[in-house]
């Protein structure tokens, strides 16, 4: 429980956040883009 935030943990969090934010950005870009 007292483990420090490891480099692997930071990388994992950033990748997960990046993936879900990227998916959201892609989807909303397509939604708002005019045909």
């Amino acid at each position, binding site marked *: 429980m007292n483990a420090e935030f490891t480099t692997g943990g930071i990388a994992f969090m950033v990748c997960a956040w990046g993936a879900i934010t990227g998916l959201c950005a892609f989807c*909303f870009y397509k939604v708002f883009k005019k045909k």
Partner: protein
Amino acid sequence: MANNRENWGSKLGVILAVAGSAVGLGNFLRFPVQAATNGGGAFIIPYLIAFVFLGIPLAWIEWTLGRYAGYHNYGTSPSTYHVIFRKKKPWAKYLGSLGLLPPIFIIFYYGFIQSWILAFAFYSATGTLMDVVAQGPEKMTEFFGNYIMLKTCVGGIPVAIIFFLITFIANMVVLSFGVRKGIERANKICMPILLILGLVLVARVLTLPGIGKGLAFMWNPDFSQLASPKIWMAAAGQVFFTMSLGMAIIFCYASYLKPKEDLVLSSLTASATNGFAEVIIGGTVVIPMAVLVAGANIEECAKLGTFGLGFQTMPYVFGTLPFGGFLQTVWFAMLFFAGITSAISIIQPLISFCEDDLKFTRKKSVTTISTITFIGSLTAIFGLAAGTVDELDFWGGTYLIVFVGMIQAILFSFVLGRRNAKEAQANGDLPAEVNVELGENEAFAAMNDGSQLKLPRFLRPIIMYVCPIYLIVLLISFTATDGLPFITLSNVNPNDTVQLLGHTFSKIGFTWAFRGFLLVLFLLLNLAIAYAWRKGGPAEKGRSKKIKKMEIGNSDSTEEA
């Protein structure tokens, strides 16, 4: 097949409505609890895999079946299953009745819980909660316990009842305005506010000194635990719950899509929005903060469960920070906006059943469902300590949604997926306006109809085979592990008793009696279906002319028509 039902006003409207339904207590409370009790960082990997291979495909399936229902002017599973089997299998509509049980059972307790949030938002904004926090965590637990057990009164009336009535009326008022003016408008207002409040909390948490230890618990990956089937099952269950799958909600909402409205992109966008709220807001706020305060006791803390964490731990944790009252209010306001968009989505399939199958007017539908919901909610309000909410949550919010999801996946893959779309158009199963490629099957023709983003072909085997197999394995393993002990009550001590309205009952006897009540509801629902589909019955007629049809706006517009 002329469509005379309501439609969504805009693409953004339906996306926010589905996302609003999905983003709820599951994202901000259930997800962190699941993660904390299943190894923290170890949980995230199976969760993301389940999101991709189970959640997103099943959402596409449910949207498509909903659109299929809308083609035939229905919005719920009994009539739609009947139509899918070309009205030749009398049992199909009764099988579809299972799809309406989750919203019935869930709304019986969800409205009550939603009212707790409103009450605690009020207590936060007025400073009452800060006064309680100042007296220590035990006092916080006592305050919450007294509130939900109806011991906190004003003028002899339990405050919980007053807040329940306010919440109940607010939900029904929104729904009485219909799909576009009620549900869509509420989501367009609530969802942006909810996301902004969530991001305010994320920003505050990430700037706390020492938050690295909390984030480490949540995000340091632990590959050694991936061999545990329990973690995989918990992750799949969480994806199911958080995305509102198998609850008849997406099914019903998708039935209001306009002709030629995109489905693949809308579904993916709603899923991604839900994932954002869960992974970034849910995964950052609750557990990392609780770790800071509870330290080595975090797993014990998580065992308090969703409500203990949300209504006891979090107000206490926020209350210990500078501007604690403000943060508490932001927390409960966020939960309230999440709750109201979810609650209205749970009720709408029941209103759709009244409007589209029984051909009630909207006023009569809302009145009927209000009455049933109100009576059902009393079982949760007064039977909370006796375990009624646990029963409703197990059957409606856990077991049946996986079962219904499995039926939907099988219908999509092995019934619609096996029928030629051109032949379906010739039979009148698919509208003539649907563009159908040569050799295409009915399932994917309906999914890709009007699509702005066509489903890539390599995803088809995942939807057709991986998703149904995933669901069957999930259902069997859940039944074998957690399901059977709960169903058979083998984990209940025969001498245990429960209290209801001042009377003492055997826990086992009371639980079976309550299950009998749920069974009666199931039988009454099937009687209503039989009445709707009797010879010359209302289900085959068009939608009631008394229900005003909204004009169809510009599908591509993101503005309200």
